[in-house]
Every structure is written in C-alpha cells, then in structure tokens.
C-alpha cells in the first residue's frame, strides 16, 4: 500500500519528469509569449477532470477502475471504458520510451541505434512495474527530492548565467484566446493522463479521503514547474526559437556554461529527465497493467510482462520516430484523445456511479 503522500510524489514526479524537456505548451499552437497562460488553463482543466477520477477512486476503496467500471457498466461496458484508459497509458508509455531514446541519441550518441536505449528503458520500467506500487511509492519520495533539487538548482543557474533575455512575456493575449487554448490542449491531455493514474493506483492507496487532494496537488505542483520552464524557454530563446526547438530546455541549458564550475548543464538536465521519464513510463506501464489485470481478472505482473514483450517492436521501430512525435503531441491528436478518454471512460463511469448512488448504491 502507498500513502497519499507517496501517491502525490508518484504523480508529480512522473509528470514533471515527462515535461522537463518537452514543454508541450511551447510547441503546440501559436501561443508564443502567452504560453504561460496556456499552462494555467491546461493545469486548471486537467485538475478539474482528474479530480473526477480521483473522486471515483476515493469512492471505490480497494478497487481500481478495472473492477469498479465492470461493477458499474457491466462486463462489456467496463472493459471498453477501462481499455481506453489502459491503452492510452500504454501508448504514451511506448511513445515516451522512444522519445527519450531518440533525444539522447540525436544529442549525444548519433550512431547508437534507437532500440539500444529504448529496450533497456522499457525493461527498467517493466521491472519497476513488476515490483509494484509499494516499491514505486517509496522510490518516488527519494527521486522527487532529487528531481526538486536539480530543478531548483537549474533554474537558479538559468537566471544567473543564461543568455540575455531577449523576449518578454508581454503582450498578453495579443493574438486572442484561440492560440492560447489551442496550445493548452496537449498540456491538458498530458496532465489529464498523469492525474488519471489515480484510477489504477488509488486501489493501493491508504486514507482514501486524501486521494483527490493528493492528485490535485500533484498536478498543481507539476503545473507550476511547467509554468516556470515555459517562461524560461520563451524569454531566453524567444518564443519562435523555442517553438522550433525539439527540446527547448535542452537548447537553453546548452547555452549555459559556467567556466570551471558547470560546463554542461544540459547533461544534468538530461540525467534528471531520463530519471523522471523512466519513472513516468514505469508508472504508466504499471497503471496500464493494473487496469487490464483487474478488468480481466489477471495478475498485473503477468500483464506487465506481456505488455513489455508487445512493446519491444514499437519502441524499436521508426513508426514512433521523432517526426511522428510532434504529430502525436499536436493539438488535434491530443484533443481528440482527451475527448475519447473523457467521453469513453470518465463520463460513463461517473454517470453510472451517480445513477447507482441515487438508487441507493454505495
């Protein structure tokens, strides 16, 4: 079992780790200087929707979505609702594995084949997922602290030694609200998926009453980190340059060199990112396994092993190459994906829960 505090660390660490380098609000849409507003919008919306998931988890102690969806919607409906979310977790897990391996390769090891990094990361995630939520929860406390120290130190270095800040954050909403909302969609989706891990991990969480607060706080803290990252990238690189960069924060970090003290800040960030993303893919794989296992009545460890084997080809294949990544994280794709999760998973389960509650069920 994990405590609400460990649930918070797990959710926050996974999201910060994933966002540390990618900055979806900077890439998507044309928010430009207003990317910071997109972060606020995305964080707010993600918290609202994820809170529904956390509420459902709280109301079904000892059960994951895989079980209580079957109870509420019947076997077929429950399997479909669970399957949508579990598949989303799994696909995102594979995308992240491929992405981190490609970024490392393109920046540092150009002649290393993608699979040589992707498979060890997936294997690590598989091992972590098999260890179970208890181990992951305990590990999250340590890794979150390490990550927090690295981020705070990096930000201090950014402000003290980074290049002249060419761009400012003004003008606010000069392009209207459209681009701001468009840019917030991918970040909302990613936040939403991060938060909805609670539908799997909630089953293992003690003090059920604190689950919604832990979930919302995790999204809030990780949203704050994203806000600071986005402001840094936009003001130092300029919004257009930041948008063009595959990894804006790495681009910014590679422009910082403190003679005799810290020559390669980008390496520090990459190390933190690899740690965070590995943790994130572990949590995604574990959540997916728990949901599928609970839905079909199988041990989630066995499901993890199957998912690992199935994932070997996609993470090694160019179908998930870096050019595809941008499309997968685009506003239309993530928007539709978020709607599918909201309409296909959350809405029917929540409505069924309300109907059951009105009828006098638990």
């Amino acid at each position, binding site marked *: 079992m994990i405590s609400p505090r460990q649930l918070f660390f797990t959710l926050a660490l996974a999201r910060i780790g994933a966002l540390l380098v990618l900055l979806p609000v900077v890439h998507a849409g044309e928010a430009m200087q207003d990317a910071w507003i997109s972060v606020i919008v995305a964080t707010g919306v993600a918290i609202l929707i994820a809170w529904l998931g956390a509420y459902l988890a709280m109301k079904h102690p000892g059960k994951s979505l895989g079980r209580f969806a079957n109870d509420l919607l019947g076997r077929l409906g429950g399997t479909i609702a669970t399957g949508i979310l579990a598949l989303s977790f799994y696909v995102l897990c594979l995308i992240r594995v491929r992405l981190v391996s490609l970024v490392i390769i393109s920046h540092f*090891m150009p002649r290393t*084949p993608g699979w040589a990094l992707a498979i060890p990361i997936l294997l690590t995630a598989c091992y972590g997922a098999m260890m179970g939520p208890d181990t992951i929860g305990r590990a999250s406390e340590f890794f979150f602290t390490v990550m927090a120290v690295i981020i705070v130190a990096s930000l201090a270095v950014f402000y003290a030694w980074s290049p002249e800040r060419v761009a400012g954050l*003004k003008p606010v909403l000069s392009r209207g609200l459209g681009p701001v909302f468009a840019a917030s969609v991918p970040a909302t989706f990613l936040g939403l998926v991060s938060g909805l891990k609670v539908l799997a991990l909630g089953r293992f969480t003690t003090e059920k009453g604190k689950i919604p607060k832990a979930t919302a706080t995790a999204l809030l803290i990780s949203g704050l980190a994203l806000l600071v990252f986005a402001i840094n990238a936009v003001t130092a690189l*300029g919004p257009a340059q930041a948008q063009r960069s595959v990894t804006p924060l790495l681009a*910014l970090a*590679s422009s910082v060199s403190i003679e005799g003290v810290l020559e390669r800040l980008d390496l520090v960030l990459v190390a933190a990112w690899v740690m965070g993303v590995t943790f994130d893919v572990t949590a995604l794989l574990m959540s997916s396994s728990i949901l599928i296992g609970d839905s079909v009545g199988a041990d989630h460890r066995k499901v993890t092993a199957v998912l690992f084997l199935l994932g070997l080809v996609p993470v090694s294949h160019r179908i998930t190459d870096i050019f595809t990544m941008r499309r997968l994280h685009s506003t239309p794709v993530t928007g539709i994906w978020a709607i599918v999760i909201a309409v296909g998973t959350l809405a029917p389960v929540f409505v069924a829960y309300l109907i059951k509650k009105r009828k006098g069920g638990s």
Partner: protein
Amino acid sequence: MRRTGFVALIIFLALGFSGCWDRIEIEDVAIVGAMGIDKGQGDNVVVSLEITNPGALAIGTHAATSQSPVVSIVTRDEASTIRAAITNAQRRTPRRIVTGLIGTVVFGQSLAREGIGQYIDYLVRNARVRSSAVLATCDSGAGLLQRPFLSPLPSRTLAGLSESAPASGMTMTATITEFAAKLSEPGIEPITLHTVGRKTKDVQVKRQGEEVKQTDPAVMLEEPIDVDITLDGELPADSPVLSPYRESSSGEFVPGITIDIGIAAYRDDKMVGLLDGVEARGYLWATGKLEEGTVEVPDPGGSGKTIALSIIRSSASIKPVLDEEVVRMDVELHVDLETREGPLDTDMTNETLLQALEDSIDALILHEARATLNRVQKELKSDIYGFGNRVYRANPKLWAQLEPRWNDEVFPNLEVRLQVSSRVRAPGAAYGLSAR
C-alpha cells in the same frame, strides 16, 4: 526469481548503457576549438577549423620530445554547406573531428554581408555544437583563427578575448542562442562581437630583411589563404586590417596581435555595419549594457588636463511613448563612475567641481550615444536597440501596422529622447594631492 531478474536486468542495462556503439577514444578525436566561416566561390562557404593537438599543449611546445610541437592546425575546406565542408576536412584528418568544444564561431565580413541565416541554422540544429559558443564577425573568419596571442591556441585567444574585451566598454558578446533569439524576435536586430584580423594572404613578411613566417610557429596552416575582402570604407585608414604589421620600436614587425574590437550590427541575418571604439560604446550607453570601461573628460577646474574615470555600472530605462500619431522612445541613462586619474591639485570632494564633472560626463555620454544612434538610424537602418520590440510589447496592434516599414521608414525617423544622469560615486583612494 526476483534476485535472478534483478541480476539479469543489471547485466542488460550495463550492456545497453555502455555507449559501445559510440565510443571514440580521446586519442582518436580531433577537437575543434574554433570555426571560421567565409564566403567561397558562388554560394559556397569556406570553413576553417582550428584543430587542437592536446598532446603538444600538455608537454609544451619547446620540450624535447617526439611529440609534434604543433599545438593546432587550421584546416580549410570549401563546400556548399558547412556540414559538407567539415566532411571534406574529415577526409584528410586521421582523427574524428569533434565540434562539441567549439567556443567561438567567426564569420567573415563578405559572407556576413550576404546573410548567415543558413549557417546559424546549422549551429542551432547541430546538438553537438554548444549554443554558448560566442559569435564573432571578422574581416576574414579564417584569418582570425591564425592569430594566437598570449595563448598558444588561436581558439583560446578568441575565447579569452570574448570574455575580457567587454571590460574595455567598447564591445559586447553574443552567443549563438542570443543571436538566434534576436533573429526570431520581432523588433530587435542581432549583433555580434567584431574583431579585426589581418589579411591572411600576408603570411610571408620581411623581418629585418629576412623572409619569415609571421604566424606563431606553434600554429601551422595547411595552405595560404587568399580571401578578398571588400571593406566598403568601414574601417579607418590605420586599421590593422589595412596595415596588418606595424613596426615596433625595436625595428621588428609585430605579427597581427593588434586587435581592434567592436560590434557588428546585423539586419535580419545580414551584417550592415560595424561599430568600433567609441561608436560601440555609444550603443552600449543607450542600451545600459556598459559595465566597465574608461571615460575621459577635461578637468572642469580649468587645468587643461584630463580626468579619467572608470565606469562602475550603467543602466538604461527605455519607455515607448505611443500616442495615436506619435511613436517616441524616452531613454533614461544612469551611469555610476569612480575617479581614477586627474591633475594633482584637483579636489574631488569639491561639490561645485564634482557637479561640473558630472555635467561634463553627461554631455560626453549624450554625445556618444546620440552619435551612434544617428548613424544606426540613418545609415545602418537596423534596430539593434530593440525599440521596435518595446512597441510590440506595449501595443501589438500598432506594431502590426508598423512592422513592415519599421527598419526602413519608422526607425530611421524615430524620435529618441535621451536623458543622462551620471554620478561620480567615489574619488578613488585619494581625495587629491597637493603639488609643491
């Protein structure tokens, strides 16, 4: 079972993360310290790479050893892209060329005037070139790579120069990141450090009647470079570019160590002019980026001598005034100074004299800032001050109207009100000395 799995995982990870596919031993790499990029034939570029020889650096160039005493070598290759030129260089280099430690990238003027956007893209896109590398514009990118000074390596000379030269108060540096950011940001044009090298075709010169090679013996050039440079009258007649070797008092010729330094102004990705010496300082006054340097003003006490003051700090507050019909910039400059040198009898605590001194400094700063501003506005027509960016931030809709004609029409005629407030904060270590 768990323990077996854990051990298997560790072994697999150790194999996966060993970096076997990429391994390059240190003795197998050719480390590039600086890169020069010049215009070649047609649309080609000439890429010069200063490849260092760490072994020679470690043992010293004069040690009796079998190690080659050459601390660096400059390769020169022409191709249509930088990447292809580096690949050409690799064909003749027995070690793998590594660009990850490039500290300075020097663009030749001829190329810079035609546009360097594509080459900036190479530098930004290439994850193995650090974005913290300093950009410099020189008469010839290759020429600058041949001139070591107080350091055996030209690249270290360049890197040291980019760190120390701003202390003169007559230049400032820009990294690849800063240049690229200004290229993409509306209403602000990029600049680079500008250094003046010497004509590289003058490799052989006479010293006391004898033909000698003037480049540092520790640095070898694969072949003489002959780059034609059209300076368009940008440089003064006594510039070291035009007369690269000056005769010293001992009668020997001093190799091209006389470095003139300033700022190269760009418009978009094209260099439009140079601001050297006091002109560069005029730009730095108006942007509040002057943190060191020396100011000389006549002694207000009437001695006819000069008082030297060092700049402690400066700042500039730039406020756009945007009425319906008027676009104006109000620039307030604040400068703190300290007295460094003056006539013996001048009492630096005399308030009347101090006020007169500050008035003189105000007038000097105003003159320098205004002179540079006039040239940049009327001649260069490139908003390197970022006034347009201020308009954009304050009123995006107005900026959208002004942007198409900003550099050509609006900026050259922009009213800029300069107001200077200097303060002599300290008299140095003495209030004054009495002459007999």
